């Protein structure tokens, strides 16, 4: 908006400018409020552990006292976790986005009896507290479909049967080359779980988007002779690209940031995700190493922060939906 919010212009030159100054001062104050914990963490993270006195934690160290030692230590401590998180987040994000889009398409663009009922179940799924399903998930993933163990077996027997089918050795080798570790198998349960819990919000976002697409466009495509599948491929999917960006960003953040599911579903340390690792990083025999802890927090937050900084608007869009 290029003009003053109408009806709000304060009359009187002086009064107006003073109130503007007050306004900006307050808004800047809030900027400080929102940034200071982060800034303090940042300033602390580049202090030498030894120099860390706790005085004025928000002040950055003098340039010659700054060090990235905590960052590099934190990075290497969290490296496995970062990789595990990526191995988890990327497929879970893509899967939930794709399935969410498909669900939204099936429930919006083609209209039929009862779709609102089904859609309501999707929407309600967004609000389910994870606690409500933890115990069944534990039973499911440990006793009924213990994917976690299968890798152990497959490793024990070389390349082997994975419950149902053979894993081609080339596939395994390729995975190896790409840096996948056998223990990444353990993340499959987490990927599936996050996908299932991500679908509802993705479906919601996509449906809102699809509802805005004119019905006529789909009808035009039908008249043009395209099947439901082709319409999805050629019309809906290309038009979903901006929404995919929003959804991916949102899901990436959500899944990356989650702790609870990982805590319950990943019991082997090798496969622990970064949030799990971060919980007690920096506590050691020598006392809490605050610079390390803060550096670790930053490193763990870096991907989402980056996503946020680069795609701030899309993030806001996803969040506001």
């Amino acid at each position: 908006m290029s003009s003053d919010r109408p009806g709000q212009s304060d009359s009187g030159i002086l009064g107006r400018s003073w109130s503007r100054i007050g306004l900006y001062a307050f808004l800047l104050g809030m900027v400080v409020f929102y940034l200071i914990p982060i800034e303090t963490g940042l300033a602390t993270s580049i202090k030498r552990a030894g120099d860390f006195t706790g005085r004025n934690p928000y002040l950055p160290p003098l340039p010659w006292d700054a060090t990235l030692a905590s960052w590099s230590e934190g990075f290497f401590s969290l490296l496995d976790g970062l990789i595990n998180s990526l191995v988890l987040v990327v497929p879970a994000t893509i899967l939930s986005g794709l399935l969410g889009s498909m669900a939204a398409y099936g429930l919006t663009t083609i209209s039929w009896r009862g779709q609102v009922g089904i859609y309501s179940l999707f929407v309600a799924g967004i609000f389910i507290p994870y606690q409500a399903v933890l115990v069944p998930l534990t039973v499911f993933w440990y006793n009924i479909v213990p994917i976690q163990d299968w890798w152990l077996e497959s490793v024990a027997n070389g390349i082997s049967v994975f419950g149902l089918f053979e894993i081609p050795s080339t596939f395994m080798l390729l995975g190896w080359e790409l840096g996948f570790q056998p223990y990444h198998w353990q993340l499959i349960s987490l990927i599936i779980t996050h996908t299932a819990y991500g679908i509802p919000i993705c479906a919601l976002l996509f449906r809102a988007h699809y509802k805005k697409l004119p019905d006529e466009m789909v009808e035009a495509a039908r008249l043009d002779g395209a099947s439901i599948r082709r319409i999805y491929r050629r019309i809906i999917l290309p038009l979903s690209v901006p929404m995919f960006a929003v959804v991916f960003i949102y899901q990436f953040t959500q899944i990356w940031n989650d702790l609870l599911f990982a805590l319950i579903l990943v019991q082997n340390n090798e496969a622990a995700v970064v949030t799990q690792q971060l919980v007690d990083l920096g506590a050691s025999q020598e006392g809490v190493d605050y610079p390390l802890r803060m550096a670790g927090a930053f490193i763990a937050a870096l991907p989402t922060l980056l996503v946020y900084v680069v795609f701030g608007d899309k993030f806001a869009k996803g969040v506001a939906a």
Partner: protein
Amino acid sequence: MAELTLDSITKIFTDDDGSDIVAVDDVNVDIPDGEFLVLVGPSGCGKSTTLRMIAGLETITEGEIRLGGERINEQPPADRDIAMVFQSYALYPHMTVKQNMSFGLEESTEMPDEKISEVVTETATMMGIEDLLDRKPSELSGGQQQRVALGRAIVRDPEVFLMDEPLSNLDAKLRSTMRTELQRLQEDLGVTTVYVTHDQTEAMTMSDRIAILNDGVLQQVGTPLECYHEPNNEFVAGFIGEPSMNFFEMAVEDDQLVTEQFTYPISESVRSEVDGHERVMLGIRPSAISVEVGAMPADDHDFATVVDVVEPMGDEENVYLAFGDERGDSVETFVATVGGMQRLESGQSVVAHIPESAIHLFDTDDGTALKNRDLEDLDERDPHLQ
């Protein structure tokens, strides 16, 4: 090229509480090959529904639609050889103009790519949009989008064009340009066309024939002038023409028609047409009324009136007149269209002449026309001809 027949088609939607909405009620129209038929009617009368049934986007509850004599009720839209132009154009925003135009051919035919490209380019040239082929719809103006939507329909070389208010998103100036263009195009292509609009100007100006729907029921099918001058019923009479025809509900007493406000003598021939009716609806077009200032009622069909409101329109004026000498909120007025230079003023007393040859009479119960103005009779009397 084919003749399109709507044979007693009916469409019933089922409402929430299970009650039925009859959107289209037993409509019969025969559209000869190459005709430009305009489907017109007030909002919600079932125009779009009819069109969508033809397109196959809506099932047909009863009746049959035939294309070239062959029943197409069960054919999916893609197989009907019909192209449709939507009000919102429904261009695919992520595709270029060229891709938009190719899509239908790619999906519904086996045509090789080069051939498609050739056909598309040809059509685009014909439409004067060959320069736009690589643009996205968002980079086009409303009129250009319109042309692309048309081009997309044309390129498929269908038997029938369906158009659902294709011009209503354009501004007034562009609308009138596109109107002429569309009309010319259809003449050139000679493709049977069903065109939906709720704008009676479009209906009048573009069509070979008009089909007027009300509440799902077909009121009249005829040429624009037939509909204007020889409306089947009161609805058509009131719907076509701007400002609307004036109506007076009158009692038939011997050789005159009577309301509280005025008494209108009728000739023998007219009297015979209303035989057996106690009440009739008298209709008179505003342009058929002439107004004289400063004169006294001379004729049987001259009435003393007072000017309520004057709306100057430049070369014409709409004058709201009240019988007697009262004016104000509560008095019922009727409107006459007079020459723009007449300088009438609110409150002025004038004489309104309502010629008997120009009146329409309708049945008060079902609105059927009892007497219409006679088309033959008109040419001589028309004041515009000089």
